[in-house]
């Protein structure tokens, strides 16, 4: 499916929509260049579940964990990683089998570490305010 957003608010609203159908154990791999709205998507997603949580970029910390009322959200950023083996050492597998939802920025740079049920979301730039967002799961929550 293709979605065009024309504001940061619309990208967040898409995140909120995905949050409303998300279930523990799911993994969303976010792909897109710098400044295409990956973190804004996560902000919309997390704040839909818990408005009080402050979503920050995990580029430096690699993973931020938000303990929301519904399930924990594991907000990863692979931006600084160079090698899939680095993920072994931060215990990435443990998050996959966990009780929460993984949202992974730059999530498709190591395809080999992603489980088969991964849902990719691709962000593309169409100018200063316009973003093209591609995904292939069902937003109504009745299955993908």
């Amino acid at each position: 499916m293709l979605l065009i957003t024309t504001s940061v608010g619309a990208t967040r609203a898409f995140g909120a929509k995905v949050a409303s159908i998300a279930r523990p154990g799911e993994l969303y791999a976010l792909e897109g260049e710098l400044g295409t709205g990956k973190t804004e998507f996560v902000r919309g997603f997390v704040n839909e579940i818990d408005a009080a949580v402050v979503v920050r970029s995990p580029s430096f910390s690699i993973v931020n964990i938000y303990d929301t009322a519904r399930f924990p959200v594991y907000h990863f950023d692979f931006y600084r990683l160079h090698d899939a083996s680095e993920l072994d050492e931060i215990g990435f597998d443990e998050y996959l089998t966990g009780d929460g939802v993984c949202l992974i920025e730059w999530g498709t740079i190591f395809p080999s570490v992603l489980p088969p049920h991964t849902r990719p979301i691709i962000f593309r730039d169409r100018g200063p305010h316009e973003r093209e967002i591609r995904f292939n799961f069902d937003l109504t929550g009745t299955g993908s």
Partner: protein
Amino acid sequence: MITLGIESSCDETSIALLDNETILVNTIYSQTEHRDFGGVVPEVASRAHLEKIDRLAQSCFTRTGIAPGKVDLIAVTDSPGLAGALLVGISFALGFHTAWNIPITGINHLEGHICSILFENTDVAFPFLALVVSGGHTSLYRVDSLDEFNCLGETVDDAAGEAFDKVGKLLGFPYPAGRFIEEEAARFSGDISQCPSFPVARCSQGKLYFSFSGLKTAVKYFVSGKNPSEVARQRPALCRAFQQAVIDSLVANARLAARQNGIDRIALVGGVACNSYLREALHRQFPDTAFTPHTSLCTDNAAMIALAGFRRYQRDKLRRPIMNASRTL
């Protein structure tokens, strides 16, 4: 009194030895120092720490001629940071503690950064403000004592150092990009008013938050669509304007925090505190009451951890390192 400091909370592995508050040796193994040696990339992996920590410690003892058994206190960063990375430092420290029966204390990484100003300003009066600016942090703290510091405000998206690194990537600089952007900005000789103008996130209703994500995106759009030679020609002005936008935001919040708290003493710490324009701007805003560590003590290092440990020893506040390291920075 000899204190052994150990820091491994993120990218840097560092070991230091202090004699009271004098640094005898402060070794840091980081990607920055080793870039010139070909292909050593930043590694977040705990194995990277594990491979270096022994050699660093050995070199500290060899260079100072101090025998390991002569250490009087061990201070190790135990939070916050990446769990695996922290555990390397903590395990090493606990092993050393057990083998030589030397007292040990855990240190909060932030407490260490705050202590970094005390090497050159040993008796800064409390309370003071601390502006912590690095790749992972952009926060303002009120420091009432070394046992009590409270966050007044922090970034709501990207850290300032992260903004430097990401804008650096857009402009073609290596990681970490802070030093390159500063050097490029210094090549701009014109008036700042001739530079491109970038938005600076302003606080609303007296709130002390920072935001740098929009600034990053603004630089991206300034660059996009321009041909590479045009970008290269404008790069000094771009770097100057970007850097100034970050500094304006940091200084504006520092000024606001000072007014709200009635405190004019302020410490600038963390990796971005190396930036000479930022240091100057803060000193201009707080003449005589802005405190900055030596540039060699801004990025993560074990000397500041050792000093925080020594100060804990003096206050009789040693505490066992916490092993269940928090999972985020």
